[in-house]
């Protein structure tokens, strides 16, 4: 896999006429995790929707290996090597867990999922159950596994740890680390600071739709982060 480089420059967008993200820049290279953090309603999810193509960029550019892709339809971005795990409605409720995992594969066999099932045996036990009957945390885990198993160079994860209990959050961290080792890059929206601090290589702290603080993990300590998380 060639060393990927993903960047966004001066991205502006929002819902209807409401401008939620007001010009945000960021970049990551292969094997890096960029954590987007900030208080609720500062535009984190909006940003990730702009990057994944579910909202149109009003201005700015989204660059994948130097090619600007903001025009590419959401459904087409997966084939460019971008995985997206949304925050809300993360799984197909009326599809079985198995179908949720294998939907885009030729076969229904679950061979490549073995490593994931080791860490999340709960899923293996629920294969025939409709996704909708999973608890909130389980849905997030299912969505996370589905996303990582796509084994793509870039993954955009929106609050993967929401409602997930700590032990499993640690499993997520481990799995992300494995993918990083293989050169995958992540953009991660997180509320759970403890988790963010463990996985992030760089931070992008947002407030009111703008970047208020960014940099490598080494450069930024918890105190600085907290100042932006409190009002």
């Amino acid at each position, binding site marked *: 896999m060639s060393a990927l480089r993903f960047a966004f420059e001066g991205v502006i967008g929002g819902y209807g006429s409401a401008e939620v993200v007001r010009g945000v820049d960021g970049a990551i290279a292969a094997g890096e995790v960029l954590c987007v953090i900030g208080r609720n309603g500062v535009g984190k999810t909006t940003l990730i929707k702009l990057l*994944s193509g*579910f909202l149109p960029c009003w201005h700015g550019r989204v660059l994948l290996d130097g090619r600007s892709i903001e025009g590419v*339809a*959401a*459904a*087409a*971005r*997966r*084939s460019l090597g971008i*995985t*997206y*795990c*949304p925050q809300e*409605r*993360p*799984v*197909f*409720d*009326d*599809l*079985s867990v198995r*179908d949720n995992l*294998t*939907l*885009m*594969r*030729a076969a229904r066999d679950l061979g490549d999922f073995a490593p994931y099932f080791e860490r999340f045996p709960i899923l293996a036990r629920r294969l025939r159950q*409709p996704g909708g009957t999973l608890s909130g945390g389980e849905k997030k885990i299912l969505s996370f596994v*589905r996303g990582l198993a796509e084994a793509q160079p870039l993954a955009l994860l929106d609050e993967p740890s929401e409602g997930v209990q700590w032990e499993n959050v640690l499993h997520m961290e481990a799995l992300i680390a494995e993918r990083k080792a293989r050169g995958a890059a992540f953009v991660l929206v997180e509320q759970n600071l403890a988790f963010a601090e463990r996985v992030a290589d760089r931070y992008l702290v947002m407030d009111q739709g703008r970047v208020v603080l960014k940099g490598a993990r080494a450069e930024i300590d918890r105190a600085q982060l907290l100042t932006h998380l409190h009002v």
Partner: protein
Amino acid sequence: MDPLLITQLVNVAYGVSVLALLALGLAIVFGLLGVLNLAHGEFVMIGAYCAWLVQGWHWPFLAAVPLALAVCGGLGLLVERVLVRPLYQRPFDTLVATWGLSLLLRKSAEAIFGLDYRSLDVPLAGTVDFLGATYPLYRLVLIAVSVVLLAALLLWYARSRTGTRIRAMVGNIELAQALGIPVRRLAAGTFTVGSALAGLGGVMVAPLVTVQPFMGLDYVLQSFFVLVVGGLGSALGLLSGAAVIGGINSVVSAAVNNTYGYFTVLITAILFLWLRPRGIHARG
């Protein structure tokens, strides 16, 4: 065994299979895609007219099949683009819009073909001996055809992931896109296939009934009952729905008379809808 009894039994089989054949298209459009298409009957009607045209041109009957598939499929594609696509999130509005469409298609057929009752010569006319009973050959063929089609559908559901993807798309369109499903194309394709199959049903029944613009009305409601009774989104649902609705109709019509047959069908449909929430074969 009494040949007449056998004949009535075959009648039941025929009743079931013709119903399944007519509901096939709707099973895709409503059962999978969730579009309440009240113009389904009109697609059947158009298919039937294709068969009539083909006879007029002195082409072989089977030539009607590709023609109907093409015409109804093309029309379906257009309808999906113009009428259905904007309304995916508003099912009841689809109901009204497609009701308007059915009026439109009926009137167009009237304008093009007139109201006259059209009739086709039955291909493979005549009767054959079947288990000691004499039965019209074409009807037997029709039973076979619908069995084959149902089997094909069953297989398709089992093998292909498309059915599952369609359901995924209907259930959660944003996530479907995130997984790289080209939702617009998939939806359009599904509706097109469904419409084409409705046309095929029309071709198949055309030789047995009178072809006129109003014929569709007879089929659309029946088809809906078949699906909701049987259960949406599965070939088994279609089959069992057709078995219940068509079977009961035929059996009671054979044992008593058509009036009771029809009453029983309606009452059964109501009871199933009421007491069997997801139909006989719930999907998922």
